[in-house]
């Protein structure tokens, strides 16, 4: 049985994960820094407290499923999977290396990855299919999908959302990493996404919002799924791109920038200072 981690322990993990993310991106020479840092608290909460999933049960028919539709934030996923024991931590050092399975988007060659993603707008349909299978087989596993906000411009998401609502998939939980930025700039300037809350409600979802970088808020919401019986759940997780490092936060520049040695040192110092403040 996995140890039950307290909020304080989870907060510490988030800081450690952020350090690992930055370290492997620097070592691998490429990566999606901003989105990995915005989504790390979500992954931390899911993998350490919410998902009925472990390396031992990963092949089990009744395991919860997690699909990372925003595949480019893979460094966050690799970091959490390594910590949960899906593969040795040392394998993270092969990120982006020739012949490595640890490439810039998740593939099933990496233990713990549910589905190959990377092209945007694919994860929700896959999650709907698996959630539907659970309903057909009267199994009680749940399916979680993490989407970026920029990828919501892909029409396939709304096809999937329509189906999720139609089949009343209350075993489906879609989390939007709502950091408000995409590679070109603020999402609302690129193509307006809002009002997302109303849009998803209109498609049949029960919608909640929270601070997506707050462990207590994430826990409170994710422990209460489904948000409504007979409806799929949608969590608008309001995050900060680059969260945890002052000069990376809310900066488009850090979408996929690799920290220089100096930036890396400064970021690690900031994170260690934050860690020291956690008593």
């Amino acid at each position: 049985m996995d140890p039950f981690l307290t909020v304080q322990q989870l907060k510490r993990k988030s800081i450690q994960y952020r350090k690992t993310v930055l370290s492997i991106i620097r070592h691998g020479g490429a990566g999606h820094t901003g989105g990995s840092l915005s989504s790390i608290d979500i992954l931390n909460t899911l993998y350490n407290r919410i998902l009925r999933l472990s390396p031992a049960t990963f092949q089990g028919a009744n395991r919860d499923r997690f699909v990372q539709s925003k595949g480019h934030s893979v460094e966050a996923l690799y970091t959490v999977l390594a910590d949960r024991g899906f593969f040795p931590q040392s394998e993270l050092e092969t990120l982006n290396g020739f012949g490595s399975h640890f490439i810039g988007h998740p593939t099933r060659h990496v233990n713990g990855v549910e589905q190959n993603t990377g092209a945007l707008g694919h994860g929700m349909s896959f999650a709907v299919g698996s959630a539907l299978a659970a309903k057909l087989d009267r199994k009680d596993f749940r399916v979680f999908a993490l989407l970026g906000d920029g990828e919501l411009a892909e029409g396939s998401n709304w096809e999937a959302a329509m189906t999720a609502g139609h089949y009343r998939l209350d075993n489906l939980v879609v989390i939007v990493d709502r950091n408000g930025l995409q590679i070109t700039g603020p999402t609302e300037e690129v193509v307006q996404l809002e009002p997302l809350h109303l849009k998803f409600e209109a498609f049949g979802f029960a919608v909640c919002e929270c601070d997506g970088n707050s462990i207590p808020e994430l826990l409170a919401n994710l422990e209460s799924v489904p948000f409504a019986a007979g409806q799929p759940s949608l969590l608008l997780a309001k995050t900060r791109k680059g969260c945890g490092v002052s000069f990376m936060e809310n900066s488009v520049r850090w979408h996929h920038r690799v920290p220089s040695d100096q930036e890396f040192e400064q970021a690690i110092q900031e994170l260690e200072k934050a860690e020291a403040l956690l008593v």
Partner: protein
Amino acid sequence: MEATSSNLDVFAATLSEAAKADRNILVVTSDSRGSGRLTPFVAAVPEQIVEVGIAEQNLVGISAGLAAAGKKVFAVSPACFLTARALEQIKNDVCYSDRPVKVVGISAGVSYGALGSTHHSLHDFAALRAIHNITIVAPADNFETREAVQAALRMSKPIYLRFGKKVMPHLPRLASRFELGLASLIRSGNDLSFLASGETVAPALEAAELLAAEGIDCRVLSFHTIKPLDEAAVLKAASETGCLITVEEHSVSGGLGEACASLLLQHGQPVRFQIVGFPDEYTMTGSQAELFRHYGISGSGLAQSARRLRTNKSE
């Protein structure tokens, strides 16, 4: 003689029978149960059909998710939409992710005739041949259709099945064995070979019969499997008959013909060779039968191509 049906009807009937015995078999459709002749399937196993509406990308993504959870999924939609609009889902969600979805393109080729180019799939072999990890199958008649559906059910890898909706004659067979990846010998002969696929095998056989009356003895092979290609059968036909005509209800670009051409050229195999299919042009309008005639995919058209190719050979 046993009554015949369209391959599409045989697909639906075969699948219905199998689904009654296996509740894990699912059909996923995009408002296409009628055009997929699936009404009897719905009547037989109403719990085993999933409707997603007119949304092909979602159709394939959901099918991958269902397959990942252990379902035997047939994603059924008109070939024209399925293999174009949802190509990225086929590439990533099914093939790259290795989800054993049976992607079923219905009313394929120019089956929709006068509905026009939006409804034709003359690109699907080409598009899918360039994607790793998918078998591509276009059965010629009811027998091959039944066998292909059963083979697909046994497979744990992605497969594309392509069906037309014309009532097909039973083709004679020199061997009853059906195996994906092995061409079926429909007629033996050593003067010229027709390497045909899907609904073009029947006119190829007609051509062979016309030519037999002129003393030209043609071999007819059904290349029901476009990928993996039965390379040995192509090379054998080339070396034994010296004259090859490939026939397909597909663009001349990227389909069976070019697959054979590439193989032959790389083997340095000297052979007279012609690809019959749909040329790179704004496709003529008309019914499937009219289009087949117009583009030379008919008994007389193919016989004419054969005579011309053989004349060139003896020059």
